[in-house]
């Protein structure tokens, strides 16, 4: 079956088996390996992408289901050669260690800040509670997302 998606702003299409998972489509067919796979039960969230701006676990969606839709992966966060505030903040606040959960965490954080530009500690924790991290204990991930919020609001006021 033919699937056509807009991924990180570019239109890509391919012929795929109906059973192909979106994760495999993104990683294998499109070669965007920043999206990861960490479990078989939609529990860990490292495969999260933004589907029309909303976080979605790509291991739980067939590629054919997203025909015609718009996807953002970690590779799409950098704009015009500039790291996004969330990318800068994860680096500055030591929000990552092994890096495996990081793309998903940053995408969920990006979507959260679109909806809620100034989230509390609890609000960030609730937003990322579908995503596991084994390295950081979440402390610095929360800090990173809040720092990105501060960065963005400075950008707006500047």
């Amino acid at each position, binding site marked *: 079956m033919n699937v056509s998606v807009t991924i990180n702003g570019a239109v890509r299409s391919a012929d795929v*088996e109906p*059973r*192909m998972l979106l994760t*495999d489509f993104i*990683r294998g067919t499109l070669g*965007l*390996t*920043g*999206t*990861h*796979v*960490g*479990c*078989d*039960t939609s*529990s*860990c969230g*490292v495969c999260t992408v933004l589907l029309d701006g909303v976080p979605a676990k790509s291991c739980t969606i067939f590629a054919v289901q997203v025909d015609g839709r718009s996807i953002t*992966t*970690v*590779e799409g*966060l*950098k704009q015009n050669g500039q*790291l996004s505030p969330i*990318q800068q903040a*994860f*680096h*500055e606040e*030591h929000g*990552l*260690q*092994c*890096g*495996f*959960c*990081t*793309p998903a965490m*940053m995408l969920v954080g990006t979507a959260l800040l679109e909806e809620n530009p100034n989230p509390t*500690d609890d609000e*960030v*924790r*609730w937003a*990322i*509670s*579908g*995503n*596991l*991290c*084994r*390295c*950081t*204990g*979440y*402390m*610095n*991930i*929360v800090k990173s997302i809040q720092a990105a919020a501060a960065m963005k609001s400075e950008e707006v006021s500047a």
Partner: protein
Amino acid sequence: MTTTAEHTPKTTAEVGGLGHSRRRVEDARFIEGRGNYVDDIVLPGMLHMAIHRSPLAHARILSIDTSEASAVEGVIAVVTGELLAGYNLAWMPTLSGDTQAVLATDKVRFQGQEIAAVIAVDRYIAQDAADKIVVEYEELEPIVTPQRSLEADAPLIRDDKEGQDTNQCYIWESGDKEATDAVFAKADKVVDLDTFYPRSHPSPLETCGIVADVNSATGQATLYMTSQAPHAHRTVFALVAGLPEQNIRIVSPDIGGGFGNKVPVYPGYVVATAASLVIGQPIKWVETRYENLISTGFGRDYHMHGEMALSNDGKILGLRVDMLSDQGAFFSDAQPTKFKAGLFHIVTGSYDYPVAHVTTRGAYTNKAPGGVAYRCSFRVTEASYMIERLVQNAAYEIGMDPAEFRRKNFIKKDQFPYLSPTGFVYDSGDYEAALDLAMEMVGWDEIQKEKEQARAEGRLVGIGLASFTEVVGAGHGDDYDILGLRMFDSAELRIHPTGKAILKLGVRTQGQGHETTFAQIVAEELGIPASDIKVVEGDTDNTPYGLGTYASRSTPVAGAATAVVSRNLREKARKIAAHLLEASEDDLEWEVGKFFVKGDRDSSVTIQDVAFAAYTNMPEGVEPGLEGVHYYDPPNMTYPFGSYVVVVEVDPDTGQWKVRKMVAVDDCGVRINPMIVEGQIHGGLTEGFAMSSMQYITFDEQGNCIGANFLDYLIPTAWETPRFELGETVTPSPHHPIGAKGVGESATVGSPAAFVNAVVDALWHLGVRNIDMPVSADRVWAAMEEAKA
């Protein structure tokens, strides 16, 4: 909040030596999705492998029918144990010197055991075909507890091993039994504790995997593997597969977390390599999460009984511990040869008493093999839990405040180096300082008042303390080895003509930030800015031999090697500087980054000037170049320590408990990069919380694994995970070149006892004396009900 000791780095932020919270070099690729993990590797002509696993825990294999699987379109080959036996590869050695089936030929010995593998053109087809393999079994009694395993009438699990006529895997003891028994016979009081540290799994978010690429023309095997120990693995592959070691290159690319899970060699690695050798094409095998949890290296599974002899005034007189370890079907810990239960005999903890005796027994069961040091230095986690739980119960039984009881029994600051009753030489410590700081940070007196107040209102508040001592950084090589390989580590430093450098190490980072911190050690020693130093690890063709990253050994061992090789090059640089300054070497003084002539600070050369001269203008009789390698065999291990305080509130109706406050004071000696150290502690505390509250693997009586997916095996999310407040004291290691001790695992070692002590403290007045981990709400509720009855 963080309470930190004074950090006054010797170097500027631009140089970025010790004590700078330098931002991480490795972040750049990860935040752009440009990391390179094993599953990201795609090679031309690459095939995919899937494994057929046993649904039964213990059964004789009567037949294996692969015909239907072979007939699936796209299948290239089906590999069975019988086929591997033709290459003498049906069995392999474990890192503990036992044997393990690669693909089962005679019996299956645990649920999830590897039986056959399918190689196909894509992963979906490989999995389809693997499901079509039909195995006929004769079921045998599954043995799911070590107690049953050791009964005389228990069926023999390891009937493959000559001379193995029981299910006992090992028995080992440490300390002086006679002297200890004599002390116990005369003690005023003996307090005991039975506790079980359940089976847990490191479950890094990236599962294990390999891309095996054996070039049939050249015989070169390039193995991209999730390996915490690429050099040791290369040697094992050379021994197992009979491949010449120079033709094996192990590349351990970016690793998505390890925590001990990526130390063993797994059957899947061996099968993929053998299949690539035979088929002549690259083969990828990446575990599913189910495969990772059901078959690869678990941690813990220790049944422990401890007894403490006490005097009436609260002095510890001696310790007796009897431990039974559930090893699963194969003994595949990665233990030093001499120590069957790893470093469990450090169970005497942070306290000073003259005698102890420890007996450890290991038993085979029909469960997955492993017993890896899960974020732990060879079983020190179980030891620390045992002593810190026992100490709290002993304090209450004797009627003392647990903090006072600890203080009274601590090894004192001036007693170091301290010889423990089981033979460890603790390098340095100041346990009271760490405890003082933790109590001050948590507001000890106020929190005690709050606890009393809460109790008066019918609420249950508990305070738990743990003052742990860890032992990390194995060797020395005389005492510590893996399969005979001495536990040294190495660093190779090459300073290029322009003064930039490359540092190559035998260890392998899995998120600890080596690319950032090891450059800081060189920066400190040579004054070359850390940003001018590239750190390379994880490629056996391009790095010096080392034993790998686990047991918190990278900083204590490879970090020391890095400091020493830097100092060696500084001495060579001195000769060149003397030549450039036309002065005698003895007249030169060093300050970070340059040599100058004593009394004439204007006559100086920088390390960069010297580097250029090393390739362009050498003094006579000195070898050109500015490069070196150092293999560091540590004189002793290092002993990080800390004091953790947890405050919980337990719901008296449901047994649910919440952490109200957690303070963690760590002393890991000199901190190379405080930001990274704190990140390591956050992560370690979270895994400690996980184990104490929710994370464990269990089995039903048929040997079915309960916990082979993330719906049954619970890992805390950000929502459940407590907030942590960190504090720090600094007691340098006297024998480490930069005084560092290692920190990756301290928090996982120290914190579980603090969490459990807090919950038990909340319920002590009700009569509750122990709840085994995970301390889930239903267990708390049941303990309260039992105490009422």
